[in-house]
Each structure stands twice: as C-alpha cells, then as structure tokens.
C-alpha cells in the first residue's frame, strides 16, 4: 500500500470526521484521505478473523449502465458472463483491454434486467468511466452514469457480521447467498446490502446515500461492539485480502498483466462469443502463459514487498506484487509473477529484499480459507 502522489488535495469520504474522532491514523490512498489503522493492524486483522471489523470503503467507485442494451454493453466490456446473473446477484469480473490486460477488476451487480452497477477501484474511477463511455456504445446506445458520489459504502466483515447487521435490518440475511444482494433499510437508512467482501470472511457491504453514512456507521459500531466488532482500516484490509489471495489492482494486476497471467481464468465467461480482449485470453488458455502469479512463503526471516525482484539460478526472473507479514498465519507471505516453469507448489526461488537474498517457496493459494459452517 503506497501513498499516491498527486497534486490535487485528498478527497474525503462522508465518514472522514468519524475516523478522525476514533483516533485513526489517516493516509493518502488512491487520491483519498483514508484511515490506515485505528487500534493497530494486527488487532484489527485478528478481530475480523474471530469476530468482526467495520470498514469505510466509500472511496470505491460506482458506474451504472442502463437501457435496453445494458446487458450487451456489460457483456462487451467485461470478461465474466453477466448473462448468468439474476436480479439481486453480483459477480467478480474484469474490465479488459484488447490485449486481455486489466483496465480494472470490478464487481458487476444486476439491479434489473436493464440496469447494472459496476463497483470499481477508487484510483480508477475516472479512467474506467472514460473507458466504458468509449467502448460500451460499440454495441448500441446505453446510458452510462458515474454515480460514485451517490453512494457511501460500509463493509462489515467477519464471522459475527451477520448477527450484527441483522440486529439493524428486516432484510433476511441468513437466506441471502454469497454474492447476492437486496434493497432494504439498515438502521433506518435506505440501503443496498450485499453479501460480499474483501477479507476472506463472511460479511456484508452496505451501500447508502452519503448523508446517512455516519448514522449507519455509528449504529453498526454500537450494535457490534458487544460482539467484538472494531473499526478496521486499509492496513488490515490489505493483510486480510492478501491472506485470502484476493488481488489488488495496481499491485497484483494492471494494464500490463493479463487475466490468465493473474490466474483468474474463473472470471472469464468462456462461452461468450465476444468481449474486449477475448482473442488473447482464449489463446492464452489454449497455449498457456509464459508467466503467472503464484503465492509464496518467505522461508528466511524477512518480508518481501511489492516490487522486490524474484531470482532463480542467479538471474532475475520475476517480481513480487504483494507481500506482508500476516497477523493470523504469522508468517511472511506474498504473491509474485514468475515464469510458468516455477509455479508448481514446492518450487523454491529467492527474493532480493533490499540487497539480501531471502529464500521463498511456492505454496498453493489461498493462504487462508475460512472454516465453512
């Protein structure tokens, strides 16, 4: 996680004052002034694994497509098969270039047959909107709206999340399946509740109008504190998502890495006859890729981080995309792009950590999988 250099002043989410009031350490991230930690990354990380964490992810963007051609437009610009979605269902997908690389990774929500909402990364909102505005109309007229300012987004994540959110809503959460969503009221606020997240735990992401964000945040804190819920910042969000090997745009994927290199073939609708980047991805699926992302553990006492070079038999062969010391597994883990020949679990390579070569070993992903009840 690095600060984004920018001349523009940092933007503030509707919950900025709440974070400052809670004593959060604030940092610039993707153009936003965001809480990186409150009580500490380790404590917040462990709270999410054992109880629950409350995250402000209002910096994320929303872009909506509507009209008779909305589905065709979505199908054209993203990799996954949005035709499989029913009303109230969401899907992980990729917005791709003709080269099969990532413009962004996105969640596609089907609000209605002719209305889709894409949740996009904060730092990519303007780029994505411009990309979609250019390419979506290639299949016909479609309304495209950047509605990012209309939503605050609060995530409640962890095994206790369902009990906590259920205290505040009549929406039946137990019957809501993973990657489904519903509209309703939460703490008296008009909301869309989605059973999604970026932590590897069960949990919910709640979309509300920005003017009601603080009301909902405080209600969730009050309802969850007895169950062990704590506010959690971007620091814990990063270590949690990495344990679950969820990719981070700008670290693990970008316009120079393809969906297949990123080992995300499962978000490609292979039965679709057309989408931007399909030819490259179909070819890479058939022929394989020269390099691929892998998960690794550092064997020596050191932490590999984004940008460190991977070495094998004396030559630099790859690069670390994400790395940290994880509070739950208590070891240094990470992801890296390496030649396909080095991707089998058990393969060893070294990582240049500030001039010192540390040994690492390829391990299966994900590092952490939550126990299913």
């Amino acid at each position, binding site marked *: *996680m690095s600060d984004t250099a920018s001349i523009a002043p940092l933007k503030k989410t509707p919950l900025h004052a709440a974070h400052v009031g809670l004593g959060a350490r604030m940092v610039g991230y993707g153009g936003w002034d965001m809480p*990186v*930690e409150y009580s*500490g*990354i*380790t404590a917040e990380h462990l709270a999410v694994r054992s109880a629950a964490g409350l995250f402000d992810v209002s910096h994320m963007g929303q872009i909506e497509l509507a009209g008779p051609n909305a589905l065709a437009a979505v199908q054209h610009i993203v990799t996954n098969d949005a035709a499989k979605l029913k009303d109230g269902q969401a899907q992980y997908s990729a917005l791709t270039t003709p080269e099969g690389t990532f413009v962004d990774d996105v969640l596609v929500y089907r609000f209605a047959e002719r209305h889709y909402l894409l949740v996009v990364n904060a730092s990519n909102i303007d780029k994505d909107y411009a990309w979609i505005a250019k390419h979506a109309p290639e299949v016909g007229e479609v309304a495209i709206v950047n509605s990012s300012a209309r939503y605050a987004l609060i995530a409640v994540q962890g095994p206790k999340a369902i009990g906590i959110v259920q205290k505040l809503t009549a929406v039946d959460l137990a019957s809501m399946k993973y990657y489904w969503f519903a509209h309703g009221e939460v703490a008296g606020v008009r909301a869309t509740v989605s059973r999604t997240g970026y932590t590897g735990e069960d949990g919910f992401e709640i979309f509300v109008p920005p003017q009601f964000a603080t009301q909902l945040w405080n209600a969730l804190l009050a309802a969850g504190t007895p169950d062990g819920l704590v506010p959690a910042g971007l*620091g814990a969000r990063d*270590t949690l998502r990495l344990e679950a090997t969820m990719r981070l745009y700008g670290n693990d994927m970008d316009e120079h890495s393809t969906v297949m290199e990123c080992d995300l073939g499962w978000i490609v609708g292979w039965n679709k006859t057309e989408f931007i980047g399909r030819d490259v991805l179909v070819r890479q699926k058939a022929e394989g890729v020269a390099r691929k992302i892998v998960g690794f553990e550092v064997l020596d*006492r*050191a*932490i590999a*981080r984004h940008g460190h070079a991977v070495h094998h038999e004396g030559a630099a062969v790859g690069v670390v995309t994400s790395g*940290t*010391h994880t*509070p739950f597994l208590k070891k*240094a883990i990470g992801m890296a792009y390496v030649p396909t020949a080095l991707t089998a679990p058990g393969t060893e390579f070294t990582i240049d950590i*500030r001039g010192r070569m540390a040994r690492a070993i390829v391990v299966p992903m994900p590092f952490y999988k939550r126990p299913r009840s």
Partner: protein
Amino acid sequence: MYPSHLKYTKDHEWVSVDGDHGTVGITHFAQQQLGDVVYVELPEIGTVLTVGQPFGTIESVKAVSELFAPMSGTVVDVNTALKDRPDSVNSAPHDTWMIKVKLGDPGDLSALLGAPEYETLTH
C-alpha cells in the same frame, strides 16, 4: 511518557548512558508510527558504528525503517531476545533495548535531547 533518565535523538531512538557505554532502543513515538513490529535486524557484536548512520532495520506489518546510530562506537552487546519477541518493542519500547555500544566519542552525547525537548518534537 518519556523517562527523564534517557536521552533521545531526532530519529526517535533513546539512549541510556552508563559511564562510557550507551544502551539504545526506539521510543514510544517511533513504535507508534511503525505499528506492529515483526522483525528487528541488528548488527553483530564488534560492529563499528558511525553517528547518524544506519545500524539496523526494523520492520512492521506496514513498513520497513532504518535504525540510526545515536553515537559512534563499537557494538558490545545485542538483544537477541528480540528475534523471538519483536513485539516487545511495541509493548514496552523504553524497556526494550537493542544494542549496547562502547562510546567512540563521548562528545556525541551533547547532541542528544532531554525528555521534555524530545516530547515537544513529537507533537
């Protein structure tokens, strides 16, 4: 917050002086900035330090930082217990020493800050 028997640097180390020896750790402010410490890399006994130069690294979940020598001298002891308990830097920063140094130039001590002065610096 900052014990008066210790001296401090602008790089957020503390020094406990005993005759011609100094014991070095990092301050409460430093550990707070770092967050949860997971590794501390220290020099070997016998390493010669130059005032203001890095003598080790400290790594937290968030980031890696260098440790800067508060004074010139020779490392005479290293706290090897930090290998297994790096988190003691967070829980008891002013009681968790890193290295003991035989002073090369006692004059280096005059550049160190007193507790009130250091506390002002951290605000």
